[in-house]
C-alpha cells in the first residue's frame, strides 16, 4: 500500500489534537498559576491585581467546562477525519448516507441509557462527563445532517 496522504488531511488531523491539548493545558495552567499568583498578590497587598475568590473560582469553573467541550469537539473532529483518511488510503470511495446521520444519535442514546441505568453507582463527576459526551454526539448528529444535505444536493 503506497502512502500517498493528502497534506490537507494531515493538517486536519493535527489541528483538532493541538486544540484539545491546548484546552487541557490552558485549564491546568490557569488552575496552578492563577491561584498561586492570586495568593502572591494578596500577600503583597496588591489589591488592583488581586481577584476575589468567588470570581477566580467562577473563572476556573467556566474554563473547566469549556475544556471538556473543546476536548470532546476536537476528538470528534479528529476521529471523523481519521476515518476519511483511512478510507482514502484503502482506495475506497466514500458516500455519505443515512447511516452516518443516524450513528451519532444511536451512540448518544447508548451513552445516555448507560449513565441513566448506572446513576446509582457512578459518581457525579463521571455522570457529568457522560452527559457531556451525549451533548457532543448530538452536535455530531447536527454536523452529519448538514453534510448529508450537502451530499444529497451535490448528487
Amino acid at each position, binding site marked *: 500500500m503506497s502512502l500517498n496522504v493528502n497534506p490537507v488531511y494531515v493538517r486536519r488531523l493535527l489541528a483538532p489534537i493541538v486544540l484539545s491539548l491546548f484546552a487541557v493545558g490552558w485549564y491546568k495552567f490557569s488552575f496552578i498559576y492563577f491561584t498561586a499568583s492570586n495568593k502572591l498578590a494578596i500577600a503583597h497587598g496588591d489589591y488592583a491585581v488581586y481577584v476575589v475568590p468567588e470570581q477566580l473560582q467562577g473563572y476556573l469553573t*467556566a474554563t473547566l467546562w469549556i475544556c471538556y467541550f473543546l476536548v470532546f469537539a476536537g476528538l470528534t473532529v479528529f476521529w471523523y477525519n481519521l476515518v476519511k483518511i483511512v478510507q482514502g488510503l484503502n482506495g475506497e470511495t466514500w458516500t455519505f448516507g443515512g447511516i452516518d446521520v443516524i450513528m451519532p444519535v444511536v451512540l448518544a442514546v447508548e451513552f445516555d441509557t448507560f449513565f441513566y441505568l448506572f446513576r446509582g453507582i457512578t459518581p457525579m463527576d463521571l455522570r457529568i462527563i457522560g452527559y457531556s459526551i451525549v451533548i457532543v454526539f448530538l452536535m455530531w448528529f447536527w454536523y452529519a445532517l448538514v453534510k448529508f444535505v450537502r451530499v444529497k444536493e451535490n448528487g
Partner: protein
Amino acid sequence: MVLEPVFSYGWPIVFGVFALSGFILGWSAQRGNYCFVNAMTSVFTVRSYERFGALLLLFGLSALGAGLLVGTGLIPASDQYYFNYFGGWYILVGSIIFGFGAALAGGCNLSMLYRAASGYVQNWIELFGMMIGTYIFAIAIWPFQLYTMENGIFSTTSGGYVEYLPYLIFHNVSNLSVMITTLIYSIPLIGLGIYLQIRTKKKWKMMSSMSKGMMPSIPKIKAMGSPVPTSIKRMEIGKEAKDLLLLKKPYGTNLTTVILALDMLLVFVIGAGYTFNYLVITSSDGGRFFEYILFLFGQHLFLTTPWFNDSLPIVDTSTLMVVMLCVGAFFSSYLGGDFKIRVPREKKRLFIGFVGGILVGIGVRMALGCNVGLMWTNFAQIGYDGIIFIFGMLGGVYLAVKVQERL
C-alpha cells in the same frame, strides 16, 4: 457611582457568557473577514468606503442598542458609563501610533487574533511584538502618562459620567436624557454608514458601465425597470442562507456587522454590574498573556513593573473572551477549509509585522484600549473618546499606507 447588577447569577455564568461572546466574535469576524484596519486602508488604497461605512454602522447600532436599553430603564445608566475611560492627549497620540502599527503589521487587534488563529504566521509575530510593545509602554511611558492623568495635564482626571455625553449635554443621566442623546448620537452614524456604502456601490456600477465590456464578476446587475419575480428572489435568499450555514460562502459585511453589534449587546446586558460589560480584548492579548508566559519562568510582572502592578487583575472576563475568540476563529477557518499555516513569501514582512506589533502594543496601551476595547466600546458607552480614536486611527493608517507604498 455604583455598579448595579441587573440579573442575579454566579460568576461561572458571567465568564461562560463572555467566553461564548468571544467565540461568536472570532467566528463571525473570521467568516466575514472583518478588519477595522482593512476598512480604513481601503479608503486610501482603493477609494472604497464600503467597509468603512460598515464600521460606522456597527458603532451606530451598538450605541443605539445600548442607549435604548438604558433609555427604556432596562439597564441602569451607571452600568453604561461606569467604565468610561479618562480622556486626554494619550487617546489621540495612542490611536495614531496604533493605526500606523496595525496597518504596517497587517491587522488590528481583532483581525490579528482571528488571522493568527487561522494560521497566518505574520500575525503570530505581530502578537508577540504587541506583547513586547506593552512591556515597553509599561516601563517607559506609563509613569509619565499616569502623572498627566492624575494631574489633569491635557487630560480629564476621572472617567465615568464625566465622559458620558448625556451628562455632559443635560447634566443628568435620566432615562429621557439618555434616550435623546442616544438618538442624536447613533442615527447620524447609521445614516452616514449606509450612505457611504450606497455611494461606493453606485460608483462601482458607474465605473463598470464606463469600462470596455461588462465586468464579469459583478453579480446580478439587473436592467433598470425589470423586476425580479418574488419566487426567484425567495429561492436566491434560501440558497444564500444555506450556503452561509454550510460555510460555503463568507458572511457579508453587513451581516457580520449586525452579528457583532448583537454580540456587544449580549455582554452589555449579561455583564452589567459585574464587570467591564463590553467587548474588550486588548488587556489580555497584549498585557496579560505576556505576564502569563513569564509566570512559566517564575517571573511576576505585577510585583515589579508599573502598569502591570496597578492596571491588570490576574484574570477577568476578557481573558476567556480572547481565548475563545481564537477558538471561534479557528473553528470557523477549519470547518470552512481555510485553515492553513501561511508564511509570507517576503521574509521582511515578518520583521515589519514585529515592528508593527510593537507599535500596536504601545499605541493601544497609551490610548487605554484598541479599536475594539476603546473605539467600538466607547460608542456603545456614548462617550467621546471613540470619536477621537477614529480620527487618530485614520491618520495613523494613512501614514502607514504611504510608508507601505515605498517599502
